[in-house]
């Protein structure tokens, strides 16, 4: 029997870069009965006191990362408890860095502790923006339907050797230029540096995510035919080795 989903969108007034919040808009079109809680920076997060099915945080500026850390730090224990209990989280682009142990930005002259949920560190290079593509398999979508996406970022993530990745890239770099392990995954927490319309661009992954959020309801994708057509075209492109530049591969490969 279908039940209403609750999706908490954290800090949409600052974490709204690169079209990332379209992911939540799309989930709402897939599940029109879902309730979206938009939690402002100075609001108390809903997840701190009530059940939430998915907590989402999108791309933000470097200054906004610092604000997000300040406002999430008081909820660190609750976040860890929810992750252990199996609550789903999706943090895109640089959002997952907020939950790491440290963000260092020499050009902007700060070196701060993160919320500390994950043992990862990020190093921000304001004049070293990395642009690249990624393709890799995730359990939610199966081997035939790899996740495809894009990176455009100042930061590289290190550490977290014992933490599973969101995916291991078949093509493209992972947390940094020396590894194919991309993002983090713990229980139902997913953090990935892929940006933009991740859920819209990956309908098979989104179907898997919806099934996990509500196992009793057959997932329905909004505009499925168009979404699959766009995905198939991109996948065909990404499977063509000629579309990959040398710098898009980890140096350890």
């Amino acid at each position, binding site marked *: 029997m279908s039940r209403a989903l609750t999706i908490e969108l954290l800090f949409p*007034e600052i974490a*709204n870069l*690169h079209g990332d919040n379209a992911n939540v808009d799309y989930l709402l079109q897939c599940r029109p009965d879902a309730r979206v809680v938009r939690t402002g*920076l*100075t609001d108390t997060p809903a997840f701190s006191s009530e059940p939430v099915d998915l907590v989402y945080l999108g791309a933000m500026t470097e200054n906004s990362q610092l604000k997000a850390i300040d*406002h999430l730090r008081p909820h660190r224990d609750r976040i860890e408890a929810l992750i252990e209990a199996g609550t789903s989280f999706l943090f895109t682009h640089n959002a997952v860095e907020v939950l790491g142990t440290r963000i260092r930005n020499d050009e902007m002259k700060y070196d701060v502790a993160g919320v500390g949920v994950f043992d990862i560190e990020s190093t921000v290079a304001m004049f070293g923006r990395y642009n690249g593509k990624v393709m890799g398999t995730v359990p939610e979508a199966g081997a035939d339907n790899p996740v495809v996406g894009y990176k455009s970022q100042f930061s590289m993530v290190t550490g977290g050797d014992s933490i599973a990745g969101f995916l291991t890239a078949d093509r493209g770099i992972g947390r940094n230029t020396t590894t194919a392990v991309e993002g983090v995954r713990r229980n139902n927490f997913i953090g990935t540096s892929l940006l933009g*319309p991740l859920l819209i*661009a990956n309908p098979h992954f989104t179907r898997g995510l919806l099934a996990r959020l509500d196992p009793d309801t057959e997932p329905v994708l909004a*505009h499925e035919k168009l979404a699959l*057509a766009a995905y198939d075209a991109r996948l065909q492109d990404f499977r063509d080795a000629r579309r990959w530049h040398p710098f898009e591969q980890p140096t350890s490969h």
Partner: protein
Amino acid sequence: MRVLLTIWVAKLAGLAIRALGRAGTHTPGLIARRLHPGIIGALRHPSRVIAVTGTNGKTTVSNLLTDALEAQGLKVTSNRNGSNIAAGVTSLLLDAVSWTGKPRTDVAVVEMDERSARLILPGLAPDLLVCMNLTRDSIKRNAHPDYIAWIISSALPASTRLVLNADDLIASSLGADTNPRTFFAVDRLPSDSDRPTGAAVDVGICPVCDHTLDWDYWRYNHIGRVHCPSCGFRSPEAAYRAHNVDAAAGRVTLELDGETREAHLINANVVNIYNEIAVAAVLDQLNVPRDRIIDVLDHIQPPTTRSAVETIGDVKLVRLLTKGLVGVACSRSFEHVASFLGRKAVVLTVDEVSERVTDVENTAWIYDADYEYLADESIEQIVVGGVRRHDHALRLAIAGVDPERIVTIESETAAADRIDLGDVDDVFNLHSVHNAVSTGTVVQERLRARLEDRARVVS
């Protein structure tokens, strides 16, 4: 001596390049920077240096200022015909000195690429910097407006006077406490609203207390006037303001630091109203008499626009440059389409897949653009052409466009043949920059031919 040698080599290179029939506005600067990386600061500058930057409007404002200052009898150097990155600015400064290194013009008007500020500003040390706005641009190059603001502020000399857009809270925050500053603005317009909409709103919280801001008026992106209901923070007050915009009469009222003047409205597009009040503010800051400022505005030619309209029979054919990769630029084009009141058909070829060869493709910008403007019953059909046509079609459907009205076709140019011209009043040809000729012009010709055929049949 090193500076002189650099001047000579660069000028000789410029002469050689021009002898070959090319403009030579970039390479001499490139050579000079190789020979002397600090050449921008080492050259003697004209007695007044004005830099103009921002995401939109910097070219128009630079050109208008150059014309206005020349009209005052001043000898002005500008990069009107050159590049606005470090090499282009170096070429400009080389042109402004003699072979012995002496300044030979009165004023330099420097259009500056905002991302190049760190290479230009420390040496250029402009007397005055104008920033028109800082809105989202290429995700891959410019990241976000906060980043560009940081680049400019980090490179800005402490004494440079700033002329900033008060309606842009990011641009208006440039610089340090040491920088003297003045602001320009455009008062609330009938088309403004009370709260922001759209994907790309980069001002949401109070810079003092993090509380969500309220809007006195919202125009587009993060442009408008804000206040904080929690701590009382407000957008800066503008000494220079445009209001009473009368498009029909071509008039506008300008507040010039305490004095009200009526002026010719150069162009009713809001971007050009900002351009006009910014030009007036700079000229006033340069102590140009206000009668002359008004006279200058009376004689300014409207800037060229990215839109061209031709009427064929009883149908308007509108060609609109819609810069792919930059979502906010697409939003302005889509908003322009929505402003037409008749029944419409749209050919959309803003695919930027070509960059997958020259660079790395990244289609996230599609979700920075407000395709919602196209979710309008008056748009009877949208034909999307190109390799990533399914992405755009999906975006349109998510925005609320009836999928039945969306047609996809692989060939960009053949989109012109697929569009149903039926009984529409307006036909739009929306193409990007890279395909302006290969697609935009071809689509325009085909649409024109079809509409001419239709007009002949009707008559």
